[in-house]
């Protein structure tokens, strides 16, 4: 059975060996420091690791490491980054924690004497920075650049600057990517951007030089209550563009793609949700339904919804609007017990994640504790498919490599010898 077949069986809710993803999305991967540590552990060639996602400083899981980890997926990557520059023109950079890495040409940091690091939209150092990694930090956070809001002049078009048709360079890029992954024995995971609605990580628009509209995080949340018409107009425009881009993308991708990463909007907090089920139905569901319906009508892809947190009250709705996959399945959040999730939703949605707690066990536990938790999660989630193993969100910096290896070994032992 190929890796792709393992994933396809899992997505079809059929029993079989547990399928695994390490590194196919910006939500299921490793901090670049962990990638280097894993390469060292597995005796793979030493070289500076590419930072493929500069916002979270995620490292590239190359094919040799993916094999060592037993990953069944490969990414067809988009061209851009969270900072609006392309993932190309690689050069070396020494991180604040002393690691030599490769970063794209547009990664032109300003490092202050305090140790704080700033990044700029499109790599343009003549405009205000849009990302900040504090001294002794390991990730960037978006700098909110909110212009004063004049209620009478608010124009939804200002929040739509980032939603554009795929251009010639994007299309050429995707052709190259599909040439690279066509014929893969692993499942191909891809995303075109612009299909997620109201992702708070994207609201500040670290990729735009001069973002307009509502870009402050609190203002955005307030707008969900007070400016609902505005939000609908943004989502409606975004959805129209996304559907056209999906048609272009599907014509290029065909059956090369197995999974489409649709949306990273977080609806859960640690103990609650960011909105009521009624708000989800009114504000988000119509757009998700249009995206998922189009994908299912025109392709064989399965659609992937990411949402951190305590989303149990919304899972029926995620299923109802057509999502096939839920990630990261944050079992550490309220009412997200793996056994109950599997019993209540496991035959209707694939859990892509939930494998181990990255808030506690993986970074702070012992290898034995990691192994025990991973084995417990495999037992809970894997029966009858509908499960792809992944950590709960990306593995964070400072996670001991011995713990990551304990996780990988536990999966391998659970699956037993593979033909």
């Amino acid at each position, binding site marked *: 059975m190929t890796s792709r077949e393992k994933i396809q069986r899992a997505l079809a809710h059929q029993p079989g060996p547990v399928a695994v993803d390490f590194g196919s999305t910006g939500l299921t991967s490793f901090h670049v420091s962990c990638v280097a540590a894993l390469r060292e552990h597995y005796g793979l060639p030493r070289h500076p690791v590419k930072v493929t996602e500069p916002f979270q400083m995620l490292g590239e899981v190359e094919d040799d490491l993916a094999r060592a980890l037993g990953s069944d997926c490969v990414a067809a990557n988009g061209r851009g980054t969270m900072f609006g520059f392309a993932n190309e023109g690689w050069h070396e950079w020494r991180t604040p924690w002393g690691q030599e890495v490769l970063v794209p040409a547009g990664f032109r940091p300003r490092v202050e004497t305090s140790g704080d690091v700033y990044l700029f939209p499109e790599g343009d150092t003549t405009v205000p920075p849009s990302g*900040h990694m*504090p*001294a*002794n*930090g*390991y*990730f960037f*956070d978006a700098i909110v650049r909110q212009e004063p809001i004049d209620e009478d002049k608010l124009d939804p078009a200002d929040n739509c600057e980032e939603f554009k048709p795929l251009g010639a360079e994007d299309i050429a890029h995707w052709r190259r990517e599909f040439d690279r992954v066509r014929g893969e024995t692993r499942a191909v995971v891809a995303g075109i951007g612009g299909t997620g609605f109201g992702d708070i990580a994207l609201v500040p628009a670290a990729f735009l030089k001069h973002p307009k509209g509502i870009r402050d*995080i*609190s203002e955005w*949340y*307030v707008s*969900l*209550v*007070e400016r609902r018409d505005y939000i609908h107009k943004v989502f409606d425009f975004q959805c129209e563009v996304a559907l056209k881009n999906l048609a272009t993308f599907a014509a290029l991708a065909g059956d090369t793609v197995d999974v489409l990463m649709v949306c990273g909007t977080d609806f859960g*907090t*640690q*103990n*609650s*949700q*960011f*909105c*009521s089920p009624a*708000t989800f139905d009114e504000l988000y569901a119509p757009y998700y339904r249009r995206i998922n319906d189009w994908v299912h009508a025109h392709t064989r892809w399965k659609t992937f919804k990411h949402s951190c947190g305590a989303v149990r*009250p919304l899972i029926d709705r995620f299923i109802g609007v057509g999502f096939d996959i839920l990630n990261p399945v944050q079992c550490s959040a309220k009412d997200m017990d793996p056994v109950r999730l599997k019993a209540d939703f496991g035959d209707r949605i694939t859990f892509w994640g939930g494998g181990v707690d*990255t*808030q*506690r066990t993986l*970074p*702070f536990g012992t290898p034995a504790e990691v192994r025990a938790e991973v084995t417990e999660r495999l037992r809970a989630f894997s029966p009858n498919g509908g499960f792809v193993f992944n950590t709960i969100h990306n593995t*964070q*910096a*400072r996670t001991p490599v011995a713990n990551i290896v304990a996780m990988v070994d536990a999966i391998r032992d659970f699956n037993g010898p593979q033909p």
Partner: protein
Amino acid sequence: MPLLTDLSAAVAAGKRIDTIRITQELLAAGTSPQDVVEQGLVPGMANVGELFRRNEIFVPEMLVAARAMKEALKLLEPLLAKAGIKPKYTVVIGTVQGDLHDIGKNLVAMMWKGANFAVVDLGTNVSADRYVAAAREHNANVVGLSALLTTTMPAMKETVRLLKEANLPNVKIMVGGAPITQAFADEIGADGYSADAGSAVNIALKLVGEAA
């Protein structure tokens, strides 16, 4: 007084214009600004906290309510200052060093403000030294530390240690944030832990010895 009850309801529902109007009417009718705060705004925000804790409202609604409260406070604070009336308790809050996340911290700060605490918000990426200095300068009753990242949990531990060493016997330390648990709070020696912004007021009140 019905108007005070109306004010509580307007704040809890996030009705900014009504909140301003009722506050003005109460002041015009001779209600003391202190009573407007303590009998109008504070019960309204307490209701917000309770609804949030029960998952009947969510972050957006809480933010909208807090905005309504702030509009009323813009009218009331100059009057309170003129009368020399200060909140009974002072709290210092911030997100620990290395961490720039502030949604949770801001929600707690709003709820504390809504409970009529004097709130000194140090922002994000706050060093242990700044917490200690602010606690001393403002004679704080409670210091609140927030962290979202697992990588900044050690900074929270170090900040608690330095606050404990700073000889501030009246300061209670409260912690919170997505990866933080009661067990972690106990392990690092914090005096209190709040799982959500809705619970933060009652926990702070308990720490300062008030029956919540």
